[in-house]
């Protein structure tokens, strides 16, 4: 049913990602789908990596780790931006197209009042793409 799953991740918040990662692994196994882990990150040095290249290496290692859990083909993709907080939604929507994904599984927070001013990324992505999007709530 699904050939390629795209999973947007933020390596800085791995602990929050667990539900969506587990789900992605289960679905990947079920449909024998490829999985692509993507990140949108700043081009400036950050806490996890001093360069986008270093971040890309970390994401690649992370993807491989995930691949060992579910045994399907994995890949990774880092999108850099001068202003990742603002460009996140559009970058993910573009990545769906670039990776030819037919399912997006991503973590999203609970609805909150602030969403009126700053809509959640997951919500925005789901309403701007024609592929299936599975939003997984994280508990916080």
């Amino acid at each position, binding site marked *: 049913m699904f050939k390629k799953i795209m999973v947007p991740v933020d390596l800085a918040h791995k602990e929050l990602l667990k539900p969506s990662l587990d789900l992605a692994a289960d679905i990947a196994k079920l449909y024998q789908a490829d999985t692509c882990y993507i990140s949108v990150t700043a081009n400036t040095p950050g*806490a996890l990596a001093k360069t986008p290249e270093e971040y890309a290496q970390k994401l690649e290692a992370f*993807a491989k780790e995930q691949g060992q859990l579910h045994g399907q083909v994995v890949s990774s993709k880092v999108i850099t931006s001068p202003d990742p907080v603002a460009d996140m939604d559009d970058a993910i929507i573009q990545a769906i197209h670039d990776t030819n994904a037919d399912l997006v599984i991503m973590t999203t927070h609970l609805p909150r009042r602030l969403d009126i001013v700053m809509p959640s990324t997951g919500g925005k992505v789901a309403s701007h793409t024609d592929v299936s999007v599975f939003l997984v709530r994280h508990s916080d």
Partner: protein
Amino acid sequence: MEKNSPNASSDKDAPVSDGVPAPEGPANLIDTDYVIGQDNVTTRRFGLDVDLHGKVFTISSLLILFFVFLTLALQDQVEPIFNAIFAFLTGNMSWFFLLAANIFVLLAVVLIFTPMGKIRIGGAHATPDFSYLGWFAMLFAAGMGIGLMFYGVSEPLTHFGTAIGGTSMEDGVRTDWAPLGAAAGDQDGAMSLAMAATIFHWGLHPWGIYAVVALALALFSFNKGLPLTMRSVFYPILGERIWGWPGHVIDILAVFATLFGLATSLGLGASQASAGLAYLFDIPNNDVTMVLLIVGISAVALLSVLAGVDKGVQRLSQLNMVLAFLLLAFVIAVGPTMAIATGFFKNLGAYLVDLPALSMPFGREDANFSQGWTAFYWAWWISWSPFVGMFIARVSRGRSVREFLIAVLLVPSLVSVLWMTAFGGTAIDQVITDNFQGVKDAALELQLFTMLGQLPLTSITSFVGIVLVMVFFVTSSDSGSLVIDSITAGGKVDAPKPQRMFWAIIEGVIAIALLLGGGLTALQTAVITTGLPFTLVLLVACYAIIKGLLSEPKG
């Protein structure tokens, strides 16, 4: 538009092979144990995520509150103090400002021609995040857009007046404000001296100042892996100590200068825009109009910071560039076209000929001009440099050093020459040819509109002028908020959005408080005095640039 640069993406559809990949990034990152954001406070309050550098955010916020309170409560007491400090700086330290600014320009020009110009910001394989047009529009809007609107007409005209008036002496001291030796009674001489002096203040020197700060920050962040904040520039000198108090102080000072620089110019700008609106459309020029203007400008700036650099600041800057270009083309077309065309080269020539004398730090006879004008401008540009420099650095990844310096130093300087020639030249031409004294007699904020009033289609061009002024304020305000946000977040550019909203709002609130309570000018004076410590920061930046470039891999 080249956003989301694909340079770093590694879309590997093939299975990931075994083994840890070999490092492929630049091999000369600074080796420090400091983790960006390690001093940050991350929490969630009232449903808002927060990610701040505890000390820098807290102390700069308190300091800002304290200064607002001080200026509001003790206006009459603090104003003379700020003025005295400022008079001392421009009076006794003018040689220092002039000398330092010359060093910045020399370094920037020399670097263009050295092999180090080939080094790329962000490493050899980095690709630019923005198109040339979008990049340049942002450089210009952040750097001086608003100033050109206000001084493009008035400054050439003022220098023309003082130059043609000749020199006057009292007790062996020059009392006139003319540049260099003036040009008493000589219309052509006065005009070329006036244009040379104006271009001097808006040409290579201000852009050299910005280029030095921006290049140092860009190098130490994108090539050396340090956070994008002012303190990183000090790494070659202070080493690991930049993570402690010396670094905090530098960053706090940068926040102070940026926030008050923006808030005071927003407040003063609102009163100028309000005067313009009153002149053009009979809108009452009062506090209500000014407050509404600040609220409106802040609201648009808020939307722009939410949309981000790419979709907010860049688009507004491009809009402004188009409008500014149309206005410029219009003035050239319907103004004295031939005089402007030949004037461009004449003025450029006059500028280059007078440059050594104008930039001479020692033994100046024209003390009023070199201290009251030049030193004032240098202190002003330098106090803006943390903000403009940080913003330029942030959008310049992927450019080579040479490309960067040509775009930040040479191109804007040439645009300034053209702008001053068109606007100032037209105004001077109106005085000389038509004997029209209106512009000269008009208030500073109305001079542009009075000049446009002598040309056809006044209502349209004046409206474009007003819109330009306001959008330039928006682009200063939004890029400033982004800069302050990343400094107070310890160099993170991906701090939660509410923080940048906070700074955009605070800026408007302070502008309104000072506008209504008084003290805008006093506080602006206080901001310009930060030019002195920042001159030292910039000299360190020069050293850091050379050291940083030399340690980049060759080839």
